[in-house]
């Protein structure tokens, strides 16, 4: 593959009209995924992770206004009319969601569903599609795939359903796999299976992956690059080692510090006071300011901190300059 980026998102902003006025769900986020790379988007609920991905791929709800530019491979997605965008997306992007039933039809055999999109986009015959379905189900580790190709979703466990959803997302051999909290509803044991599966498929097929999660452990295990979202913005972004070794935004630091540490059992956890902000009333400055244990600068409260580079590919949006270490 000759592209330097598979997906490139530039200054994406999403405003959603609600009964209580316009809500800015995502504000000026920029990021890229390179071929074969895993990009993790981490943040708490409502921080704008899903909306970022939906808007980037042209799937934002009707009530949303999206600005900014998104390029998928050679195509400027944001410049395309809806039907063309749908085609390009269908051909190059696969989606996996938290609840596999979002993508699965309960009354259709899984085999038919897995290749439904491929029939359309790759022009497969019914017969070829069935063979391909068995192949894909085998690829994602469904035991006795040839027999289970005619089974219905309810005949599979949650973890197996998620495998089927992944098979479906891979049917068109996408350049990009977007997985929105694909393991959040699963047991850790099943989560480990899905993580291994995706890593293995990625190594074999060279697919780029965007993985949304709120679990810092999952990020550490899968990501090459990570972006931390808070209040609709990316507050810190960089290579996974840099962000975990030298977290710079007070929010990233606080999140990492709040995790239980077995060597400090019996001590209080370093909790973050308060709760994540509602996008209906975001503060004018740094969205983390009301809960921030640092409040490094008088400007934090009223002024949006600029994006600053603190290392190779490592950027943060904070006035805080940190202490050494």
């Amino acid at each position, binding site marked *: 593959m000759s592209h330097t980026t598979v997906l490139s998102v530039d200054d994406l902003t999403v405003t959603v009209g609600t009964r209580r006025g316009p809500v800015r769900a995502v504000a000026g986020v920029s990021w890229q995924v390179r071929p074969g790379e895993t990009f993790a988007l981490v943040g*708490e*609920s409502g921080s704008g992770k899903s909306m970022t991905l939906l808007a980037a791929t042209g799937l934002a709800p009707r009530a949303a206004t999206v600005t900014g530019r998104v390029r998928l491979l050679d195509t400027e997605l944001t410049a395309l009319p809806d039907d063309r965008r749908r085609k390009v997306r269908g051909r190059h992007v696969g989606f996996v969601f938290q609840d596999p039933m979002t993508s699965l039809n309960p009354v259709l055999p899984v085999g038919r569903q897995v290749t439904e999109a491929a029939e359309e986009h790759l022009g497969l015959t019914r017969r070829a599609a069935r063979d391909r379905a068995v192949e894909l189900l085998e690829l994602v580790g469904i*035991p006795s795939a040839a027999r289970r190709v005619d089974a219905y979703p309810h005949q599979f*466990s*949650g*973890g*197996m359903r998620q495998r089927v959803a992944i098979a479906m997302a891979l049917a068109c051999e996408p350049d990009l796999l977007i997985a929105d909290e694909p393991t959040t509803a699963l*047991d*850790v*044991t*099943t*989560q*480990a*299976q899905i*993580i*291994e599966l995706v890593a293995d498929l990625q190594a074999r097929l060279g697919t780029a992956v965007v993985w949304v999660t*709120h*679990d*810092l*452990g*999952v*990020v*550490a*295990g899968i*990501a090459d690059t990570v972006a931390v979202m808070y209040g609709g913005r990316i507050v810190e972004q960089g290579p*996974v*080692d840099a962000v*975990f070794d030298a977290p710079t935004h007070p929010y990233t630091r*606080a*999140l*990492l510090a*709040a*995790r*239980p*540490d*077995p*060597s400090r*059992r019996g001590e*209080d*956890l*370093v*909790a*973050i*006071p308060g*709760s*994540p902000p509602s996008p209906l009333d975001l503060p004018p400055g740094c969205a983390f300011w009301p*809960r921030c244990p640092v409040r490094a600068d008088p400007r934090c409260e009223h002024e949006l901190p600029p994006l600053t580079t603190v290392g190779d590919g490592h950027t943060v949006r904070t006035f805080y300059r940190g202490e050494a270490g």
Partner: protein
Amino acid sequence: MSADTPDVVAELDDLKVHFPTPAGTVRAVDGVSLAVRRGETLGLVGESGSGKSTAGLALLRLVDPTAGRVRVAGADVTLWSRRRLRATRRHVAMVFQDPQASLDPRRTVGDSIAEPLIVHRLAASTAARRARVAELLDLVGLRADTAGRYPHELSGGQRQRVGVARALAGEPDLIVLDEPIASLDLSVQAQIMNLLRHLQRDLGLTYLFIAHDLAAVEHMSDRIAVMYLGRIVETGPPERIYRHPAHPYTAALLSAVPVADPRVERERRRIVLTGDIPSPVDPPSGCRFRTRCPQARPACAETDPALAEVGPGHDAACLFPLDGERDGGVGEGATTRADAAGTA
């Protein structure tokens, strides 16, 4: 409280809870013995469907036992009627995962917290009740004026604090915490864990802490019990369970937990269990874990192993317990990768 077991608050004795369903009898809890000791936090972990919640509900007699006994504060309550249970002071209270679902949306927070006070006649007058509600709100770190608000006006963390206040209202000996932090935002989970520990210290509470998050369970618990398919397969202190797990299931479960350290993650080897937890309608013969166990041998299909001591205060139900060592806490084990023998 019986004289021979002075420190046990509540106890399940070879308990079975079976549910008849169209697909057959679900053996949700299938021979569990568990004693919760006064003042401790007993952590209960295991995969989804292993029977944790059902065991917790049995302690409150919110499900009917099929066999075995339930003892609370020394009394055998196995066969008590709903009426008798209601009329007696609640020795056991429960906090649920989803505070939204466990609070009545049409009642104010104050009314929800006051309900146990009314049912158990724990406040002599309206004024006394109001004062007690304010006191309970203060205990869980909420302002007194929260009493007049409705659940939907609160954040998830605040709602969970209300759930805890309501559980405290009946002055229970034991609180069953069923996934109390699972629905909360990451940044709020630590607040609730701290709150629970402070309340325990200040009020001398006893907890059964049910959770998926093994790091949280390690942090909170004095003792851990690991469930698999309706059985307890291992119990012991956290240092033993997390560093020297004796049951291959515990080892696999721990090795699956991701740690927030990219270097550790790159180095580690997971014991990836193949297949899913078998159906509780038709559990495997012999050891229930054998169909997914990387160490299973022919004998495992023949013998159903009982819990047996493998170390001080440490029991495991395995014919061939592990004696290896994992270094570090959750997820830090450098266990070898092995594929399980087969799937159910």
